[in-house]
């Protein structure tokens, strides 16, 4: 998660055990937080909600539902990521499936201003959410410190940190262990 941690800009973009009655409410408040920090334009919030309606981002990861909402780069002023864990899950649509929904407990809200950065972040998030123990540690966090520790925990390292290469080869080894292998010790 070398490329993810700088996007958090410290602690203010992490919400632990957040309360929200709906995905829209949660996304609205996270977008507001990004706006207050000067990371996104005023247009980001509405663009985010519209995009989530059109292309939902819920991922039915076993045990812990995840969503990776985002909006187009034109609404972003400085690359950032907000992370939220929820007291009670909220319902998101499942990516690519207009009928399915998923109860989401962990949200990675991306506000990225270039395609290469978006790709690096997404690769690392996908690796993270497929690593069941690390994802569980994040969703179980009781404090921002614990959430940061979960996010910072060493990933199975096989790729170089030179993620500036945006082509597939350098990063294809960064995948975390599949969920079915995730119990017990990591490879």
């Amino acid at each position, binding site marked *: 998660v070398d490329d993810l941690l700088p996007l958090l800009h410290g602690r203010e973009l992490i919400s632990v055990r957040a309360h929200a009655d709906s995905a829209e409410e949660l996304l609205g408040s996270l977008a507001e937080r990004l706006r207050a920090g000067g990371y996104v334009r005023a247009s980001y919030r509405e663009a985010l909600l519209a995009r989530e309606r059109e*292309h939902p981002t819920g991922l*039915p990861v*076993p045990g812990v539902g995840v969503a990776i909402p985002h909006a187009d780069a034109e609404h972003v002023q400085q690359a950032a990521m907000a992370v939220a864990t929820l007291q009670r899950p909220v319902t998101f649509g499942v*990516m*690519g499936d207009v009928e399915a929904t998923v109860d989401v407990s962990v949200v990675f809200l991306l506000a990225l201003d270039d*395609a290469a950065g978006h*790709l690096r972040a*997404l690769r690392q998030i996908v690796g993270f959410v*497929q690593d069941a123990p690390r994802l569980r540690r994040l969703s179980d966090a009781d404090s921002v410190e614990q959430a940061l520790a979960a996010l910072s925990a060493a990933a199975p390292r096989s790729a170089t940190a030179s993620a500036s290469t945006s082509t597939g080869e350098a990063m294809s080894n960064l995948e975390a262990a599949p*969920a079915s292998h995730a119990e017990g010790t990591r490879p």
Partner: protein
Amino acid sequence: MKRVLIVCGTGIATSTVIADKIRTHLAARGIDARIEQTKVSELVRGVSGYDLVVATTQVPSTVSTPVVQGLPFLTGVGVDDALREIEVQLGGTND
């Protein structure tokens, strides 16, 4: 040479993550395929010339090419089944 089209909302990030995984797998299985990416809004005219579409978005009904869901490559659930389906759609190993 089989041709696979990966489709997501933007044609950039999600589809690239999936393309990496499919490319690696097909190469390991000796299946010769060219993998391209696009965004779903490019599909309204339909697609032609592809053997398979892998998508993380709803694909318009104008698309008659077989579609495999890309979601397993993001969640890690059902990856083996998805890869098997991709192989079947591409006619199995044809080395």
